[in-house]
């Protein structure tokens, strides 16, 4: 992989980011009431004060000038102030990133640890009863509403069995590792279900293609066992097509995180999004949308680069 290729791909993300910023700006700008709507209901804010605020924020300027002012501020890291807390949007978001990364990281781990063996199992026994059952299970997995699964798990493990806390990041006055694991295990399982279902399918088909190759037969002929062939020869190549899917699923994971964090009262950015929805905190919502979009673009970029790096047959240009 050449530096030129990486550079070209990085350049390619600029129009995407501009497009997204334009759409987000247009939505907030042309929404009923506009950004000052929150103050309009407030009797202690006079009409003169409103005009003054409008002038101070440049809201009396034409739309395209406002857009450029806003864009300039976004680029230098000034994402505005939260209407609910009055603190800078970027600071608030960064504060809430850690729980989301913990949750997402564990869900990613679950997904890989479960999906890879399931995919391999399916691929090595194509057409068997087990393969059929796993196919059905993955269909069910992608068709299960995340929020419903979350409710069912809460019902089973918290209400009926009483094994796990139904929500929250940790118990008050208890920050032990065990306590935190008990809190994170259900949301992480819920968040990983859809990705397990989809990745195991792609690993199955990737593995099935690879296992038909001549070099796999050669590896068997050299005396490797099934496990050895899969681990040493097949897995790496079988994972290459799956990598693109892992990146594409990043958007699904973001949507899933919003739901999961809300149901389990997990204090990450997904829950922050819902709190901001309830408080009509538009600067915060804009910031979070921007963050999510950048995440999706970055995931796709990383996948493309990894794809090119892992498979020397792919020519990039």
């Amino acid at each position, binding site marked *: 992989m050449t530096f030129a290729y990486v550079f070209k791909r990085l350049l390619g993300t600029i129009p995407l980011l501009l497009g997204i910023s334009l759409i987000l700006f247009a939505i907030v700008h042309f929404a009923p009431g506009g950004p000052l709507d929150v103050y309009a209901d407030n009797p202690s804010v006079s009409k003169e004060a409103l005009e003054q605020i409008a002038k101070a924020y440049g809201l009396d300027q034409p739309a395209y000038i406002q857009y450029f002012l806003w864009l300039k501020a976004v680029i230098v890291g000034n994402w505005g102030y939260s209407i609910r807390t009055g603190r800078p949007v970027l600071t608030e978001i960064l504060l809430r990133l850690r729980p989301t990364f913990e949750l997402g990281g564990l869900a990613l781990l679950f997904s890989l640890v479960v999906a890879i063996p399931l995919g391999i199992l399916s691929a090595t026994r194509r057409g068997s009863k087990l393969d059929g059952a796993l196919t059905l299970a993955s269909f069910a997995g992608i068709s299960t*509403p995340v929020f419903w699964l979350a409710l*069912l798990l809460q019902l089973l493990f918290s209400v009926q069995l009483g094994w796990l806390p139904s929500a929250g990041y940790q118990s008050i006055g208890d920050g032990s590792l065990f306590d935190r694991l008990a809190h994170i295990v259900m949301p992480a399982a819920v968040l990983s279900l859809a990705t397990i279902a989809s990745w195991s399918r792609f690993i199955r088909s990737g593995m099935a293609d690879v296992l038909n190759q001549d070099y796999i037969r050669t590896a068997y002929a050299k005396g490797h066992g099934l496990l050895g062939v899969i681990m040493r020869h097949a897995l790496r190549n079988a994972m290459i097509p799956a990598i693109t899917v892992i990146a594409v699923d990043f958007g699904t994971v973001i949507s899933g995180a*919003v739901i999961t964090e809300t149901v389990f009262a997990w204090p990450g950015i997904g829950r922050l999004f819902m709190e901001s*929805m309830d408080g009509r905190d538009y600067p915060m919502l804009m910031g979070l949308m921007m963050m999510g979009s950048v995440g999706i673009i970055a995931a796709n970029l990383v996948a493309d680069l990894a794809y090119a790096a892992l498979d020397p047959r792919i020519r990039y240009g």
Partner: protein
Amino acid sequence: MAELSLGAVSARPQQSYARRAVKRFFKRKLAVTGFVLLVAMALIVIVGPMLSPYAYDDQDFNVIGSPAPMSPEHWLGSDELGRDALTRLIYGGRISLCVGLAGAVLATIVGVLVGAVSGFYRGWTDAILMRLTDVMMSIPTLPMILLLSGLFRPGPVILVAIVGALIWMGTARLVRSQFLVLREREFVEAARALGAGNMRLMFRHILPNAIGPITVAATLAVGSAIMLESALSFLGFGIQPPVPTWGNLLNSASSWLSTAPWLAIPPGLCILVTVLAVNFVGDGLRDAMEPKE
């Protein structure tokens, strides 16, 4: 030789592509299961409300106050306002299925138009439309629909428009790739030579040849649309109570989870069964329409 092979072809019983596809579709167990489930679901939500003795917002004052369990009067129990859970479930299914179906139809229309124009005209038109598609694909769907719902407080019609506007991109990419290939084929050249205009070439000659993958994409879009609307209503946006949808039924059930778990299970099960059936049908259509020879 040419005559001989022509004779061989015409000797075979004439069977259209569509008929063969339908035949292949109904040979698949999962596809048929999905199809039957969907038909049953449609019948239930159409006929059900006519048979139910309750309207979706009728209150039974004998069981008002907190959710009541299943009983001969209320087969699936009733909610805290004394409303019959089964009636609300079936009526909610009407709304969820309608929004899902309409959203998918809209997404397919937009996707086909964008993809067709992009793949047919290529060049700058293609570049601009595909960048737009990329941009839309980079925006997280659920947060976006939440944001739009929060800002515009949409009714069902606008909601369908929003759902459609957020899930057309996959179809557009698919249709574009089909058009890029098909526009180079001889039959398009022939039609052009006979004087067909661009519109006619695109929609009368090329589009019918891409109908297989489009049908599959449209089917799967129904599943996405139902899921998206349900998630939105579950989070308290989208269609508002007292009008029930599967999503907002689950939303209200979640506050009674420990005391009335029987309210939380049926709506989710309905979403699962419907989306599963849609995915079975979509998968069956894919195999039926693009046979791997």
